[in-house]
């Protein structure tokens, strides 16, 4: 029995983690599988106290790769970092990359992750060709859009609740070099921030904006925008980039992230990155800036932190982003890593997170009832705007809020009823927001 938690280190649930090179065997009878535990809240935690969760991280073998087509098949525990270490130098990358490389292929499917190119490439699930799964009744099947369409689509973004993902076959993207050409510039307020994001996406395949979550009034929404693309061979260094070794944050007796330190940090960060810059950068600095700092979640101390990410449709009412920021700054949200990005079309996964609109991600140190209050208030704005939240980040959203945000839920539940009538698969997340019985 061990204490399991996600990247936010909240909540903590007692469970049995089963890890083996033979992941297929380890998943037999397990109520959930997990990878590197990088979802922030309770998505990778067992639904029952002491429940068995199979961990995929030792199932990390490459099974087939066709350089002519770029199709890779690998065991679900292969990390994106290992994939990048092997394939960036060969001229291939995953078509979609989330904000950290410390995720597994299985986790990328289960959360249907997206990245700075969502407006052109969609989510990771759009590029998945086939999955090998242990379905809830214990059988092991090949699952694709052709063979089992309902299960396949429910599994993309299905938070691991539709079965255990054992192998992933995904289309990699051929890249001109493994370096990134990027430009960044400062934005002074929220109007500029949103406009910079939308404008960037009209011209660039990779965009994101960082903002200062503590700035109020006229400065609300200040930050900087970053746009980029894979660098052409002529402008990139000749050798492929080395993935940096990491510095580890030690366990800390109390958190270093609070309203004061975040204010100082955000000023510093804006001064550091808010200048107009152009040039070729290391892919790690562009895609996965926090990967250089191992165990950075320890900065929040033993109490942990919550992530919050939502998407707000702006086609009906563009002012909704302002309302969101007003609630956020009024209730106070000292978030050092705050990212805004416009999303493209909704993916095919039944519960896939992104949809057209403005996506906002915040890191929030946990401060008891105040944090719950903040999440509730933000969710009210999201709900009124017709938006939704990202389950892979979530720890605090209430079931009634989630259900109201998610008109696709009945279709997902129908697939679960068909494939898992006895509810063998469950997680702490599904108990919290989907009403599964622990």
């Amino acid at each position, binding site marked *: 029995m061990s204490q399991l938690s996600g990247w936010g280190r909240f909540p903590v649930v007692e469970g049995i983690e089963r*890890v083996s*090179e*033979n992941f297929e065997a380890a998943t037999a009878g397990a109520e959930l599988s997990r990878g590197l535990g990088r979802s922030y809240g309770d998505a990778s935690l067992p639904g029952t106290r002491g429940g068995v969760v199979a961990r995929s991280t*030792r199932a990390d*073998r*490459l*099974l*087939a*790769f066709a350089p002519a087509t770029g199709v890779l098949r690998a065991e679900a525990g292969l990390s994106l970092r290992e994939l990048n270490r*092997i394939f960036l130098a060969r001229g291939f990358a995953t078509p979609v990359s989330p904000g950290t490389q410390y995720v597994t292929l299985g986790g990328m499917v289960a959360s249907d992750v997206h990245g700075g190119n969502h407006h052109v490439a969609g989510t990771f699930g759009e590029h998945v060709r086939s999955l090998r799964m242990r379905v809830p009744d214990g059988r092991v099947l090949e699952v694709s859009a052709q063979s089992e369409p309902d299960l396949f689509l429910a599994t993309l973004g299905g938070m691991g609740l539709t079965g255990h993902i054992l192998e992933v076959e995904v289309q990699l993207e051929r890249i001109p070099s493994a370096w990134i050409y990027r430009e960044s510039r400062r934005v002074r307020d929220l109007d500029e921030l949103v406009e910079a994001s939308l404008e960037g996406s009209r011209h660039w395949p990779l965009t994101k904006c960082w903002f200062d979550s503590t700035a109020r009034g006229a400065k609300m929404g200040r930050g900087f925008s970053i746009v980029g693309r894979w660098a052409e061979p002529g402008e990139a260094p000749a050798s492929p980039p080395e993935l940096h070794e990491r510095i580890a944050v030690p366990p800390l007796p109390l958190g270093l992230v609070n309203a004061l330190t975040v204010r100082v940090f955000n000023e510093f960060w804006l001064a550091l990155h808010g200048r107009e810059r152009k040039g070729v950068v290391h892919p790690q600095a562009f895609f996965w800036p926090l990967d250089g700092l191992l165990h950075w979640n320890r900065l929040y101390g033993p109490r942990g932190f919550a992530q919050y990410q939502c998407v707000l449709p702006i086609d009906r009412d563009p002012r909704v982003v302002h309302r969101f920021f007003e609630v956020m700054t009024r209730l106070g949200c000292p978030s050092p890593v705050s990212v805004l990005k416009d999303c493209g079309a909704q993916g095919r996964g039944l519960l896939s997170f992104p949809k057209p609109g403005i996506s906002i991600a915040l890191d929030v140190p946990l401060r008891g009832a105040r944090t719950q209050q903040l999440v509730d208030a933000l969710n009210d704005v999201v709900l009124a705007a017709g938006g939704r939240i990202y389950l892979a980040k979530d720890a605090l959203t209430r079931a009634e809020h989630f259900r109201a945000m998610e008109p696709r839920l009945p279709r997902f539940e129908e697939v679960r009823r068909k494939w898992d009538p006895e509810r063998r698969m469950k997680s702490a997340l599904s108990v919290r927001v989907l009403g599964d019985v622990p």
Partner: protein
Amino acid sequence: MKAVLLGATSGMGRALSRLLAERGDSLFILGIPADDLTRSARDLEERGAKGPVGTLECDLLNPSGFDAALARADDALGGFDTVVVTAGLFASQERLEADSEFCRKLLAANFTNTVLFCEAARKRLLARGGGTLCVFSSVAGERGRKPVVLYGAAKAGLSHYLEGLDHKFRAQGLVTVTVKPGFVKTSMTEGLKPPPFAGEPEGVARQVLRAIERGTPVVYAPPPWALVMLVIRALPRFVMRRIGF
């Protein structure tokens, strides 16, 4: 390098075989079961192993198959120059005391059969003027200790054999590398509480590859275990009798 590996599908063997593959070495892997070997062979090929990676089922509990397996590997590789043995069984002292059938298996696999495999490999290597034999023993074989009485006894015998082999045949070109891992986080040690200086298989693999390249006769991995075992070896018996380590 043309290497045969017994036990490359998991743990430290997997990590070491991947390093060899990334250097572009030719590999042939032995172990059980067949489909697991095939998956590891594909993995090693995609990571850069030279040519197809051959596989053959070879069970450490069935020594009658050893020579035929090595003959097949020899044919496939065109004469191997390196043999790596990471395979072995493990169980807690409690389980071995309670389950005499499994205890017999473990002692046979970790001592008798490993020695027989090494003998078969040694003969083939010496017949062509030498090579490297790298075998994973354990720090458990350094001293009689309460938590590893039985497992440690088999590993002590194995370490002794490997030391003798190195003394006797190094002049003829056979380099024996004995790896003595301390606590390494693999499936074998899953569920045990990691002590200080617990290592990761990838780190151990890098250390072992250096030792193979340099012909280092004994490797403690991770390195702090060399110091730990120096102390343990020096402790008087009345102290060992009192401590639980």
